[in-house]
């Protein structure tokens, strides 16, 4: 904690003076400025895209904002967007849940039992260094071209991120907290619940933030390889037909979904890790 915060905590209270309001007003102005500039950059990019399309660069390569917008509009109207997006999201969500559940449980187990961790360490490192995407064809053989294989790809990717983060989180737990909690009368289960899991939580949440986009990537890659629905399927099919407007429309949808999920996770993070202070 910084010295100023310590001072504030010790003092407590404080008064809302004119200078407090001035500082707050400056902060609000800054935020508005950032927002305006962000929007300006977005508009400039679209304008540049529009200007370059067909003039500097072949429309076949970069399509155009109008064509992409129109395609998204049609997809929304005829239900293509929602049908495919829901399948991609479903596979991502299942993969994420399975990967998290298994990764978290095994991370706790390995973190608590050193022998287990030492025995399996070289194998885990070996499997970890495989690009998980390379497993996608195998999963398609195992689970078919339906949703199951996409769930498997994203679960495999999420699993490792969560497993390794949970494992480190558990190993980093301050033994002082464990001992003190035990002396106060806490059993193994209480120590797990009140000390180890909360202490590992910040690691796990960092892992979650990294792994959600990966889960989405896993699903889409599964869909690229072989499927009959999903955003990845839309993109790969459009690529085959040199329909760049659809390719860009698909990519934009994925980018938006990724951004929304990330914003949600950030909300969860601030809530769960409130105790860390500012």
């Amino acid at each position, binding site marked *: 904690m910084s010295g100023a915060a310590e001072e504030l905590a010790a003092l407590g209270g404080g008064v809302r003076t004119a200078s407090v309001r001035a500082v707050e007003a400056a902060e609000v102005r800054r935020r508005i400025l950032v927002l305006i500039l962000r929007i300006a950059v977005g508009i400039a990019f679209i304008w540049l895209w529009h200007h370059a399309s067909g003039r500097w660069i072949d429309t076949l390569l970069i399509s155009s904002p109008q064509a992409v917008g129109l395609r998204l509009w049609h997809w929304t109207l005829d239900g293509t967007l929602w049908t495919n997006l829901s399948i991609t999201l479903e596979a991502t969500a299942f993969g994420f849940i399975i990967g998290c559940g298994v990764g978290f449980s095994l991370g706790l187990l390995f973190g608590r039992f050193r022998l287990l961790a030492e025995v399996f360490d070289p194998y885990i490192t070996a499997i970890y260094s495989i690009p998980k995407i390379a497993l996608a064809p195998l999963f398609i053989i195992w689970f078919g071209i339906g949703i199951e294989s996409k769930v498997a790809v994203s679960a495999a990717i999420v699993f490792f991120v969560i497993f390794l983060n949970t494992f480190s989180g558990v190993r980093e737990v301050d033994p002082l907290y464990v001992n003190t*909690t035990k*002396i*106060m*009368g806490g059993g193994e289960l209480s120590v797990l619940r009140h000390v180890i899991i909360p202490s590992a939580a910040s690691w796990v949440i960092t892992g979650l933030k990294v792994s959600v986009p990966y889960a989405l990537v896993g699903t889409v890659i599964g869909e690229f390889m072989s499927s009959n629905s999903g955003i990845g399927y839309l993109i790969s099919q459009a690529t085959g037909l040199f329909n760049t407007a659809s390719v860009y429309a698909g990519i934009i949808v994925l980018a938006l979904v990724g951004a929304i999920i990330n914003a949600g996770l950030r909300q969860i993070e601030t809530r769960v890790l409130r105790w860390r*202070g500012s």
Partner: protein
Amino acid sequence: MDDAGIAIRGVSKTYVGRGREVLALDRIDLTIEPGEFVAFVGPSGCGKSTLMNMIAGILPVSEGIILHHGRAVNGINRDVGYMTQRDAVLPWRTVEQNVALPLRFHGMPARQRRDHVASMLEQVGLSGFGHAYPAELSGGMRKRVALAQLLAYGPDTLLMDEPFGALDAQLKLLMQERLLRIWLERRQTVVFVTHDLAEAVTLANRVVVFSGRPGRIKAIEPIDLPPGRDVFRVRFLPAFEAAYTRLWDALAPEIRKGEAA
């Protein structure tokens, strides 16, 4: 001995590391009476904290036996309260939740717990901070949270390892006063590890001086000061000065040995 006394019988501690065996504590014999306030002083590395951690059951003894409540300490000792220099209040729990945690472990019902926690926080002057997280408090306030927690479930034996070491001089005196008042009221058995001789003399009934490594008991000094002493003024009494001088004479050569080595 069925009470809160502690009997340390022929206790040694050896550490094995980097291909060497080091004797940290050498055959310690000490009896701490129930309700007694004993301070351990000694040069750094003399094993005074090690001995305390063995009473708490965090470290196993290499040789000998420690009896607490007439039972041999074997594994974590859940009949003591434990407080160290480093904060052990859980940063992800609010002040209230921290103080309530041991009560929960001891099966106190929620409603009773709430009232009890509130009264404990009042005792340490932290009313109104129940919903704060430790990161929002100053170091001295966190110490008071730890104290409230310790008092809340009322162990009859307190093990304290330089609990006020990180505090500034004035705050330290205030905490000492608080602790002494609580001890006068409840008469727990207290083992208090410190490197501050003045603190030891101010608080304890008896001060145990340890020699440098390997730790042995070099001297035991009973402190002949009134139990209701005033921590701010006790240092000006002749008895304080006499005890301080005798303790320093026992301790100084040990510290010099450490310096020379």
